[in-house]
């Protein structure tokens, strides 16, 4: 019997396998950010350990950092939150390359300083906010060519699954495990099961990768993939750009999976070629030949399998407080009585009470207060181009605050070179610096109490985008359409 792509990568990385114990798995690339690493470095220091492979470890700052600077102390940030400013210096927005951290909230500044100190002490490459390369860790890894097929990649962040789009086994780990990988370049892992997700057919106009993954999660539930690694396969996947593949793999974790994988092909190799960390010359040829072997054999058997017809999908919107609670924009919020399972019913009723939505209401027409285009799910240049095409020549609705947060400085620069920033600004969107921003609202980008956020991010949990925030997850074009209409509409009506 043949092997699946997952098994191929797994088998190539088992360093030790003692009976009754999880495997010790070798890690090829370890990505680090400011929020989940300080306690791991502290453990190393306490125990007198060094970082085993600083050359395989890369750090950046993205979660806690501001995506714009206050122009004056105490200024209101657009989403109604007070921007804390400590010094009296007046300061323009614009480039964040030279950063006056005195204007930052103290705790974010402390995390950034701690990361700098840890990287300097342990000899780790840091892509600092004061340099030209910085952004959401899952955007810059691929962008720099660090992410390559056949690798194992980990990060103290659940959306590490994004890198699976390149045929790399990539998953999130906790802070203790960050310490294990720093010290030993290995991780104790129980072998997950495999789950093939076949996506056949072609996507219709206005339907995107985001809608595919939201549909998969709506079908399987937020816990449907627990203990499994998804492999996305089929015609729809093969036709997709790397950006779209990353959007899908990114939200594998929302489907409960340990990781998501897509077998590498010419699209993958074309994307990697020429990037900073990509092999060159003869090494490139050898690498590509090696990468081509990371496929699932025809006779390989998956533990579970499902099939989805992409051509039957409509744009998706979530109405609840977990990513499995989503419906087509053409549909309605379900009624509790229609659900058979008691726990699902309770879950729906609690979610709707928090969301202020009613059973059976149509998705289309739902009021929106804030629009957030960004996050590691949908902040790449392709996402911004698609959203800008909707924004162009239109105006953000008078009651809506809309922000666009590029995934990295490189995405920002590219967008500005293409004039996307002007399109957004003219339409009334705010144009920000790179970071996680309102995806998790650790910085000042917070939606206010009770506000509806049309968001391209990945999580609609209670309070995720700010205390009392109500997230409606959707694709970038759906979010842009919501911004200019002030309510959720089917983007296909205005394409």
């Amino acid at each position, binding site marked *: 019997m043949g092997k699946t792509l997952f098994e191929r990568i797994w088998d190539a990385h088992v360093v030790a396998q003692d009976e009754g114990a*999880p495997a*010790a798995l070798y890690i090829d690339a370890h990505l680090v950010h400011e929020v989940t690493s300080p306690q791991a470095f502290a453990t190393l220091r306490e125990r007198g350990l060094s970082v085993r492979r600083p050359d395989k470890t890369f750090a950046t700052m993205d979660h806690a950092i501001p995506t714009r600077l206050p122009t004056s102390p105490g200024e209101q940030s657009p989403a109604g939150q007070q921007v804390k400013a400590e010094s009296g210096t007046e300061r323009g927005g614009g480039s964040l390359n030279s950063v006056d951290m005195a204007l930052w909230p103290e705790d974010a500044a402390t995390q950034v300083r701690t990361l700098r100190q840890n990287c300097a002490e342990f000899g780790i490459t840091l892509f600092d906010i004061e340099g030209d390369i910085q952004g959401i860790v899952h955007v810059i890894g691929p962008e720099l060519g660090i992410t390559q097929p056949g690798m194992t990649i980990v990060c103290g962040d659940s959306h590490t699954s994004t890198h699976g789009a390149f045929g790399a086994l990539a998953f999130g780990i906790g802070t203790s*495990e960050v310490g294990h990988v720093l010290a030993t370049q290995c991780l104790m892992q129980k072998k997950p099961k495999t789950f093939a997700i076949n996506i056949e057919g072609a996507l219709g106009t206005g339907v995107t990768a985001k809608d595919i993954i939201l549909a998969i999660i709506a079908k399987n*539930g937020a816990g449907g993939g*627990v203990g499994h690694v998804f492999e996305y396969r089929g015609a729809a996947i093969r036709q997709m750009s790397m950006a779209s593949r990353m959007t899908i793999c990114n939200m594998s974790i929302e489907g409960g999976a340990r990781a998501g994988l897509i077998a590498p092909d010419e699209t993958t190799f074309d994307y990697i070629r020429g990037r900073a960390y990509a092999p060159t010359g003869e090494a490139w040829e050898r690498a590509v030949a090696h990468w081509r072997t990371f496929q699932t054999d025809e006779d390989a058997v998956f533990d579970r399998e499902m099939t989805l017809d992409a051509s039957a999908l409509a744009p998706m919107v979530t109405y609840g407080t*977990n990513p499995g609670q989503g419906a087509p924009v053409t549909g309605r919020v379900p009624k509790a009585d229609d659900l058979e399972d008691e726990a699902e019913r309770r879950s729906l009723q609690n979610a709707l009470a928090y969301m202020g939505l009613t059973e059976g209401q149509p998705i289309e027409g739902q009021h929106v207060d804030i629009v957030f285009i960004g996050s590691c799910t949908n902040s790449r240049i392709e996402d911004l181009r698609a959203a800008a095409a909707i924004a162009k020549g239109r105006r953000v609705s008078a009651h809506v605050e809309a922000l666009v947060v590029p995934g990295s400085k490189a995405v920002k620069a590219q967008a500005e070179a293409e004039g996307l920033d002007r399109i957004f600004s003219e339409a009334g969107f705010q144009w920000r610096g790179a970071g996680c921003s309102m995806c*998790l609202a650790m910085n000042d980008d917070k939606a206010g109490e009770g506000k509806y956020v049309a968001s391209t991010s990945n999580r609609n949990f209670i309070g995720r985008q700010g205390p009392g925030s109500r997230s409606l997850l959707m694709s970038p074009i759906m979010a842009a359409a919501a911004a200019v209409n002030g309510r959720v509409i089917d983007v296909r009506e205005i394409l």
Partner: protein
Amino acid sequence: MMQPFTNLTSTALPLRAENVDTDQIIPARYLTAVTQAGMGDGLFSWWRYKRDGSPNPDFVLNQPQYKGAEVLVAGRNFGIGSSREHAVWALTQYGFRAVISPGFADIFYNNSLKNGLLPVRLPEEIVNRLLDLIEEAPQTTISIDLENQTIALPSVSGEQWTARSFDIDPFRRWCLVRGFDELDYLLDKDKQISDFEASATF
């Protein structure tokens, strides 16, 4: 060195909710710390405090009959969402030593084991039965015997509850019982790791 876990007898707190995510267990604003301290105060913060910061008396954690409970019983799919180990630190700092649920998210499950917090998977109907029992009689104690992998309710008569066994992988149980840190295990593999690195072509 992790706190060893062998036996635990305690009252339990019923959290009748499914898909409890790590943002509910500990919201992002508590993640700004660079140490592990202070997480207990943030536990279930959205539910536990009103917006003005005062305790929400309707939330089970604030109800006096459940004070001191070291076991948390929750609905299916506990700990979904982010990889933040802060969620586990919040639970252990508050005083929980075991969580019983029909199922856990993978990363949360792994993080728990590294901090001496025992995640116990039981079939949903049994978890629902437990929730009923501890809601009806909050003084009910639960006894968890990790070595023998059983859960008993000493004060509840046999008709309503008989001891149940639960599954846990033997290596994980071994680590928990001894308070053994996986990092030591990996550090011991230094030779194999070096050999692996030497033989790697990519």
